């Protein structure tokens, strides 16, 4: 009679089983690898880590660079968002697209471009030296990592805070002005507190990205070893690899990010409130010196952030001789990469496309289960699905390798394992945005559909999913770009058959073939731009929300 088996229960169980196999099992294997040495329980690698300064200082390095980068992104990003949303800035839609592009390229491309610009033989270094005789301080190490990460990640703060500012009702600002609080005072006393929940969320996101970023310190860090680099070297390094040790360090990394996550959660619970703007803020025209300063700040930040990408594109047309650039321009670099290009582009589309479709499908289903069908199984799924949020990408990669390089399931070296890794890593973000979208949709809309003759599944696909579509779509574009520029997991899982565009750029950069790397990076950039434009056309919206 009524107790037919609900299709949603089967979906719940299926998702739970998939998580058990592809996330919990690898994490368990990783833990085992870390504490079982030669068949015996042992904490020796944890002791080793904390006994030698070479190892534990990497932790300090990571923290130092991550905290500094996070603070700088907030200092750059929040005022930028404020100016952008409060004042009329000439060319604002172009600016927004550029800012989005900045955060969507792979961080290591920024790193390598800054090396070309400010490195030992960099363009800017040489110009300054020629003009003034002054030797620009070395970009390698702490300073370089900080520069690249800050410029790479401030767009996230900008986009998040812009989203929050769109929800501030203009009357709140008018009320505060009415009570004598305006200008800078209002920015700190009203605007920033109103955006606080979002600022905290952005802070966490930036922190996690910076902490787990792997390509940047590898390229520009030189002697400045950070945590993810240490893990990679211990697993894949050319000398003295130790898998047990790599696993132990991975566990330490997860514990640290977990603590950070909990602290942020505690802080953001204290600032939880909801806003909905009936009358959104209207951009005003600033006057006089204020107008000039606002424009200068905006253009300067955007220019500096975009500079590396312009320069990469520029160098892709330079002639090369072996590994060095020589005068003259041609398409030679593009001709040289032609052979690999087809393979890596098709890999990018197959692996990335499959991952994207599955991410969206699973995220929407999980969001539905979590929001509309609260029960024990579904809250377990909710919790598990958030785990990858705190697991650095390289750790996900290592855990998957440990779990699936021996029977019964051998997946290493396949495209499948790369797709799985991408799905696991991307899901928490997509689930969060889908949940947020779904919570906005009143249950009665679905009930209306059911009372008009839809089955439960029918109501979900005909009404709920289309209503979520815009939210899903804007999340999807971000997912897509993150997926095609992903490096830290892919570099651990790939083999020659599954090289993606991002991986081939990295390979060329690490070989020093800057011309080829530049050509590949330009193509990746074009793909990103094309995806963005396509998205804007499809969604008919000029705003990308996260």
């Amino acid at each position, binding site marked *: *009679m*009524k107790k037919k088996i609900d299709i949603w229960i089967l979906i719940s169980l299926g998702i739970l089983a998939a998580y058990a196999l592809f996330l919990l099992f690898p994490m368990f294997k990783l833990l085992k690898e870390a504490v079982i040495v030669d068949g015996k329980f042992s904490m020796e690698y944890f002791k080793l880590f904390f006994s030698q300064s070479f190892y534990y200082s990497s932790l300090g390095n990571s923290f130092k660079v991550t905290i500094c980068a996070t603070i700088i992104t907030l200092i750059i990003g929040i005022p930028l968002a404020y100016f952008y949303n409060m004042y009329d800035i000439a060319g604002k839609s172009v600016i927004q697209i550029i800012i989005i592009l900045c955060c969507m390229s792979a961080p290591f491309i920024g790193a390598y471009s800054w090396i070309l610009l400010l490195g030992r033989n960099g363009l800017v270094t040489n110009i300054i030296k020629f003009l003034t005789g002054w030797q620009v301080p070395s970009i390698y190490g702490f300073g370089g990592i900080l520069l690249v990460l800050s410029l790479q990640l401030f767009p996230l703060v900008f986009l998040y805070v812009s989203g929050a500012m769109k929800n501030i009702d203009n009357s709140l600002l008018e009320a505060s002005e009415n009570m004598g609080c305006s200008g800078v005072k209002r920015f700190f006393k009203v605007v920033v507190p109103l955006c606080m929940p979002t600022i905290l969320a952005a802070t966490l996101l930036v922190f996690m990205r910076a902490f787990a970023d792997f390509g940047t310190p590898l390229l520009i860090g030189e002697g400045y070893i950070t945590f993810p680099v240490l893990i990679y070297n211990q697993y894949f390094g050319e000398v003295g690899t130790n898998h047990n040790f790599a696993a132990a360090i991975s566990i330490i990394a997860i514990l640290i990010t977990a603590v950070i996550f909990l602290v942020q959660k505690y802080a953001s619970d204290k600032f939880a409130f909801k806003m909905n703007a009936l009358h959104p803020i209207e951009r005003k025209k600033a006057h006089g010196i204020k107008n000039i300063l606002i424009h200068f700040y905006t253009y300067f930040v955007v220019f500096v952030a975009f500079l590396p990408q312009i320069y990469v594109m520029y160098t892709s047309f330079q002639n090369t001789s072996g590994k060095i650039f020589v005068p003259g321009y041609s398409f030679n670099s593009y001709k040289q990469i032609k052979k690999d290009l087809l393979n890596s582009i098709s890999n990018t589309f197959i692996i990335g496309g499959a991952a994207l479709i599955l991410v969206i499908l699973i995220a929407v289903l999980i969001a539905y289960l979590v929001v509309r069908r609260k029960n024990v199984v579904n809250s377990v799924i909710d919790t598990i699905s958030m785990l990858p949020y705190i697991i650095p990408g390289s750790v996900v990669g290592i855990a998957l390798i440990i779990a699936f390089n021996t029977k019964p399931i051998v997946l290493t070296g396949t495209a499948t394992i790369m797709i799985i890794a991408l799905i696991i890593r991307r899901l928490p973000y997509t689930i969060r945005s889908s949940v947020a979208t779904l919570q906005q949709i*009143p249950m*009665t*809309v679905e*009930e*209306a*559909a*059911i*009372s*008009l*003759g*839809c*089955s*439960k599944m*029918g*109501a979900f696909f005909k*009404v709920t999913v*289309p*209503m979520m*579509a815009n939210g899903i779509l804007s999340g999807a574009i971000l997912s897509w770009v993150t997926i095609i520029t992903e490096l830290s997991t892919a570099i651990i899982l790939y083999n020659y058959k599954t090289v993606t565009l991002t991986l081939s750029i990295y390979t060329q950069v690490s070989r020093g073939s800057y011309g080829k790397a530049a050509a590949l990076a330009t193509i990746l950039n074009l793909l990103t731009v094309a995806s963005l434009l396509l998205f804007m056309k499809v969604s008919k919206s000029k705003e990308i929300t996260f």
Partner: protein
Amino acid sequence: MSVNIKITDAVKRYGDNTIIADLSLDIKEGEFFTLLGPSGCGKTTLLRMIAGFNSIEGGDFYFNDKRINDIDPSKRNIGMVFQNYAIFPHLSVKDNVAFGLKNRKAPKDVIDRETDKFMKLMHIDEYAERMPDRLSGGQQQRVALARALVIAPDVLLMDEPLSNLDAKLRVEMRNVIKQIQNSVGITTVYVTHDQEEAMAVSDRIAVMNGGDIQHIGTPKAIYQRPANLFVSTFIGRTNIIDTNMTVEDGKCVLHFPNGYDVEMDNVQDEHKQSQNVKVSIRPEELVINTTSDEGIKVEIDDSIFLGLNTHYFVHTETGAELEIIQESKIDSILPKHSQIALTVKSEKINVFTEDGSKNILLGVENDGEQYKKGNRG
């Protein structure tokens, strides 16, 4: 095709919390039936049980002879209008209205014809291609109503459909709803907490409180002879005065302060005994005595002139506060602190037992009485 709805011994529980303990109800074919009560009284819960969105913990629900307890909400053939309208924001007005027919896989020409018909009926045909976010609240409400009616449902359910509209639009839309219901002739169950709205639209009203039905009757019956004290205070405004009634030679007399006595000739026989009672006197049932000083002596605290009527707020010598509504006179309004005497329109006032559970006068029409335990055969 319209149906009658029969509900027997309905039970609704959330965990250990019983919302509706035991409720029975008959709604006639084609009737406009309203569930009225304060928030939390279980009226929306009951409506959603009929719709199938709330589980039913006990009892039977019938449309005609068909038991619907276990029928999926999508198969009950119900048209429902929600408090927030629940218009699909991603579909145009026309597609919203056509949604139900498309689900029923109706032929395209039928869909077009019926959709047009109901959009015309609701005067929204000129917005057919518009998206819902460009409609006003009243227009969205019309779309919701058209969408619910176009599928030719057996029953129309409406959950506080007017509560999101402003006062003027609310009056306009309730007339629209009433007219449409009359012309379509569909059995309608309507939920509201607004007693004036309920009286304006309903054939019959069930006043609910605490998961129980207090009184079922026509608006007139409920207003004029409420079944108990709760109903009399919930429907309209009223003054409650505690007093006592004596019976001498078969004549029942109410004793008000200052020796003002009123003889009641319409007390039910079984209640003809001396007892303490609660008397409910609506503001318009109090009359200012201008010819003599007979009546309840009061002092005027304040007055409000509202054009058609003038309200007076007064207190008695014992401190009880009363409200009087009088048709406005051409001469001046009585000043504050004036001492006046009040008489009552004895044929209109209501008298309840001391605990307020029962109206002891003749003429109470309560269709809910038949479901009370012990009254059933």
